[in-house]
């Protein structure tokens, strides 16, 4: 059964159909890419899947249940975490606190327990701290745990954002242009990291990307979006040789 299934998803902004008839099906454990030329509606599609926008038409099912009408935080709590095209860290907080916030909705102690530091407060806070540090160790950020997030170099900010998303313990991870602004060497490292986290955390991943080498190198299956609709899907090999995709990217042959 599919982990994520979007059927006939559409959204209209005024007169513009930003995404129309968007059909995607992702099985558990898959690593799927979503590509398309600039302005094709990739990020809009992500925003639909994560509840930032509500679809005008269509259905989204995650883990067998509809997520249409849920708010973004509810969708995250169901198990979809994401990163952003333009990094959205909690810029003035420490690296450690950034990751700690991801545990927020797993915390069980209540308001009164927090105000008087009683009950489960101490135990759970200690657990959060321990887990968060472990996470930072995995992403080689542990020695920078007390640094302010905005002071990290760009590549590390990207890594922190992925670490933060994973700390929410999602089933499905959505990566919005994770390689944006990276040089080929960093992109290569990112590719390895994506493969590794997929295996390590037993994740399903959907990623948007411009960088063809990354998409072709890492994804098992690719969807191509153009003018808001899926125009092709298949393995990287199939996509590379699909005439409609070539047309969308390079223009029609004269």
């Amino acid at each position, binding site marked *: 059964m599919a982990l994520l299934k979007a059927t006939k998803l559409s959204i209209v902004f005024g007169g513009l159909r930003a995404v129309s008839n968007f059909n995607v099906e992702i099985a558990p454990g898959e690593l799927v890419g979503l590509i398309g030329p600039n302005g094709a509606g990739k990020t809009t599609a992500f925003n639909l899947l*994560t509840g*930032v926008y509500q679809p005008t038409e269509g259905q989204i099912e995650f883990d067998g249940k509809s997520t249409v009408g849920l*708010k*973004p*935080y509810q969708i*995250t*709590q169901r198990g979809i*975490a*994401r990163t*952003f095209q333009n990094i*959205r*860290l*909690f*810029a*003035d*907080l420490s690296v450690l*606190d950034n990751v*700690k*916030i*991801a*545990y*927020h*909705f797993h*915390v069980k*102690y209540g*308001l009164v327990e*927090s*105000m*008087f*530091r009683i009950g489960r*407060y*101490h135990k*759970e*806070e*200690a657990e*959060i*701290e321990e887990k968060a540090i472990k996470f930072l160790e995995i992403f080689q950020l542990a020695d920078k745990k*007390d640094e302010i997030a905005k002071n990290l170099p760009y590549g590390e900010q990207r890594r922190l954002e992925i670490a*933060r*998303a994973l700390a*929410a313990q999602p089933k499905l991870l959505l990566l919005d242009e994770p390689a944006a602004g990276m040089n080929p060497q960093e992109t290569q490292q990112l590719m390895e990291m994506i493969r590794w986290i997929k295996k390590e955390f037993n994740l399903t991943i959907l990623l948007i990307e411009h960088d063809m080498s990354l998409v072709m190198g890492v994804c098992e299956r690719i969807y191509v979006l153009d003018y808001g609709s899926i125009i092709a899907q298949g393995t990287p090999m199939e996509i590379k040789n699909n005439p409609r995709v070539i047309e969308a990217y390079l223009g029609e042959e004269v």
Partner: protein
Amino acid sequence: MKLLQKTKSDIMALVACLAVYAIIQTLILTDVIGPFWQLNIVLIGINIILVVSLNLINGFTGQFSIGHAGFMAIGAYVSAVLTVKFQLPFIAAIAGGALGAGALGFAIGLPTLRLNGDYLAIATLGLGEIIRITILNISYVGGASGFMGIPRYTDFTWMFAFTVFTVFVIKNFIDSTHGRACISVRENEIAAEAMGVDTTKYKVLAFTIGAAFAGVAGSLFSHYFYIAHPASFTFMKSFDILTMVVLGGLGSISGSITAAVLLTFVSAALASYPEWRMIIYSLMLIILMLYRPQGLFGNKELSLKMLSRWTGGKKHGSTQGN
């Protein structure tokens, strides 16, 4: 070990509080501190409660509210009604004042916190005034002449206990996952939502808690001055509180306390030169905004570590590495 360290610093803070209390109480009992400064010490405590609670809304959750005097007024009047008309004990009246202000904060917060930035500021400013003018027109609580005949229950001990309680509760709240959720709303609302934080809930929660503590401050206020008068809760009072929050640093509790002490002290010291008071007050703010726009403490807390860095110089600062 971490837990032990935390408990240790808690105990140290408690001891420090008791020491401050003992010293000032002795000075009051031995008449070293006269009635004028006694009054100002009580005002400092009330202002600390107001400033710390407003900082929770403005500084930590990032929702710019400037109607805090309105919630203070609710606390002042509700508690006065409870002690004067229903003869309830003071502690119950304070709880009532806090509940009343908190409930109103919740009811007002739900619709207004959809707004942000300037719009929220204008809405809360208006709300503060609406509360004041509504009270002005209720003859049950004395209308324009104010609610008179309130017994003086507040003294230094009550004030001190509630100030410490407020700081303790709000500080703990901020250091918990709930507080982190509030701060994440301030830092980046979209990212907070994407991390599973119910941003609306935490905005309203911070607003409600802030309003409830303003109610506590109001209760202490009206039971110190024998009277609750609408003129005490104009938007100028809201601005006073806001000034202290900004001066101390948005997102710093120790900054709030310092600013409340400093500004209350300055305005008391200048009480005999009323014509100079506002000039010096505004000059201080202009200079601060020029040289330290983030406030005295920014969003940092004053800690022993920070003190040792200042006094110990480079030697300590570099080896501590934290």
